[in-house]
């Protein structure tokens, strides 16, 4: 019985969550009284394996195969490793690539899958803490039958540090190329354009609370009056109301302004991933329980359609009637 943590990398670099995974894996290994194995599949496995050799890691396995992530290769490699190591727990990041292969590993190997863990405990069974209903509630879920595949949320565990004394070795997997039914043809950066919201020192950011495209005028007026740059949460961009380069979050831009004014934004984890580094976070929201207040420095519980016009007037502007 072991814990197997499978790292995430992209375009030549390990992603941060890989090191957080090692911390979560170490905790779980301690609770279950077992070893922590880390694995990296594809890419520059030699240097990745070195880097994964951090304090608390007992063994690092490198599976050489191609450069970039391919889910078919990952499923085969992780299946083989998990079997070879008799891994009771397979831990992966709840990243976009994690979403693309972890459920398949669980199905193929008959493991129970639990996703997006924010805390883990192990007594006789595995206990996973996870959120539901858009982060409004937390649940403790007891997972009856092992072995397990668990994906963990980013930024919930600190990154493992230091240099460990793990045994580093390569692990050969005979990849069945016929079973590889998807081909990755390349990558593209999106969301370029005239404005880089990452450069702004004051962002006025709008979310679904604005309700209608016409109402955006109000927020544009606020940005203009205060000299702020306009950004948004995802639904505003999904709706085509603002271009992609205005989107803050996991799949948009990461921003670190002096002030981030979040208006009508609930504070979903994927949004917060893009703006939690702001110096001062101010939230305006009608819902006093909105998760955005967890990371806000200042909170205004109120209706944006009342507060924003008043704020425009404070700075001598004229609020449009929406």
């Amino acid at each position: 019985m072991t814990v197997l943590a499978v790292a995430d990398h992209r375009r030549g670099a390990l992603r941060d969550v890989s090191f957080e995974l090692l911390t979560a894996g170490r905790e779980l290994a301690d609770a279950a009284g077992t070893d922590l194995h880390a694995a990296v599949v594809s890419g520059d496995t030699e240097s990745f394996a070195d880097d994964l050799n951090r304090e608390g890691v007992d063994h690092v396995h490198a599976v050489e195969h191609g450069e970039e992530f391919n889910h078919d290769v990952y499923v085969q490699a992780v299946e083989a490793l998990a079997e070879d190591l008799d891994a009771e727990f397979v831990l992966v990041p709840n990243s976009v690539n994690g979403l693309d292969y972890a459920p398949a590993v669980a199905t193929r190997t008959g493991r129970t899958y639990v996703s997006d863990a924010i805390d883990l405990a192990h007594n006789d069974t595995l206990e996973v803490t996870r959120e539901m209903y858009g982060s409004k509630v937390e649940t403790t879920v007891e997972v009856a039958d092992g072995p397990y595949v668990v994906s963990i949320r980013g930024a919930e565990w600190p990154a493992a540090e230091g240099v460990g004394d793990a045994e580093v070795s390569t692990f050969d997997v005979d990849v069945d190329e016929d079973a590889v039914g998807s081909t990755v043809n390349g990558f593209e950066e999106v969301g370029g354009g005239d404005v880089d919201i990452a450069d702004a020192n004051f962002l006025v950011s709008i979310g679904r609370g604005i309700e209608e495209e016409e109402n955006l005028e109000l927020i544009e007026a606020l940005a203009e009056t205060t000299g702020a740059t306009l950004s948004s949460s995802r639904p505003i961009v999904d709706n085509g109301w603002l271009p992609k380069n205005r989107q803050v979050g996991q799949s948009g831009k990461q921003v670190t302004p002096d002030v981030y004014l979040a208006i009508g934004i609930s504070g979903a984890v994927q949004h917060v991933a893009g703006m939690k580094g702001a110096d001062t976070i101010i939230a305006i929201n009608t819902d006093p329980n909105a998760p955005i207040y967890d990371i806000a420095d200042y909170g205004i519980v109120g209706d944006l359609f009342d507060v924003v016009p008043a704020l425009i007037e404070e700075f001598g502007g004229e609020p449009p009637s929406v």
Partner: protein
Amino acid sequence: MKVLVTVKEVAAVEDDFEISGTEIGSTYLDYDLNEWDDYAVEEGVQLAEAGDDVEVVAVTIGPERSEETIRMALAKGADRAVRVWDDAIEDVELLDVETKAQLLGAVVEEEDPDLVLSGVQANDDSFGATGVALAEELGFQWAAVVNDLDTETVLDEGVASVRRELEGGVEELTDVQLPAVLTIQTGINEPRYASLRGIRQAQSKEIAPKSLDDLGLDAGVVESSLDVTAMYEPETESDAEYIEGDAGEQAGQLADVLRDKGVVGE
């Protein structure tokens, strides 16, 4: 060509709610079509509009109440629907991914579609996993978090040319052989509103109920390995300073904060 779209009726909690035991009472819940599935339905309907003879079938696992939501998918252009439900399912508090994949898998095997579209995640229990687990269950190919699908190649060449949306504004360009499951990301299209005509037509479209028996499954399938032992409001980590008062007072104090931080001049 046949396209199957998995759709879930999801619950959102109201601003004020109470937890009793490990549940939230239905008086505090609002039910709606899962946001991601709305985009998946639209993608299916657009394929039907672009191709000849494309049938779009919506499939859900849900109680009778969810028919209202399924009708929305029909009103937006799905041709018919299948609703899986059973007393044995009703008894399960939280269906795990494996169970959902097996139930949906049984329907897929009956329907034999070329393409299955699901959402990236269900907004209530947010596993983000059912589509990929379903693909593996069926031996289909798959791609997760798809925000672009090339209509022509999927209709004409049996290949789904997709973009997968990765983190940080990077997209991966991938080709996937059919039959396949794609998990659809929001923003891939602009979901239409149901027209009055669509809503009227939906009334006469079929929603076929399927029990475990109908699908040739036994009750053991739905034994969930997940047991919710606690549900609570997260302890607030907030050390936010709340600005009180009416809107005018709040705006006044906020203006002071912004001036104080030096981001807005006098």
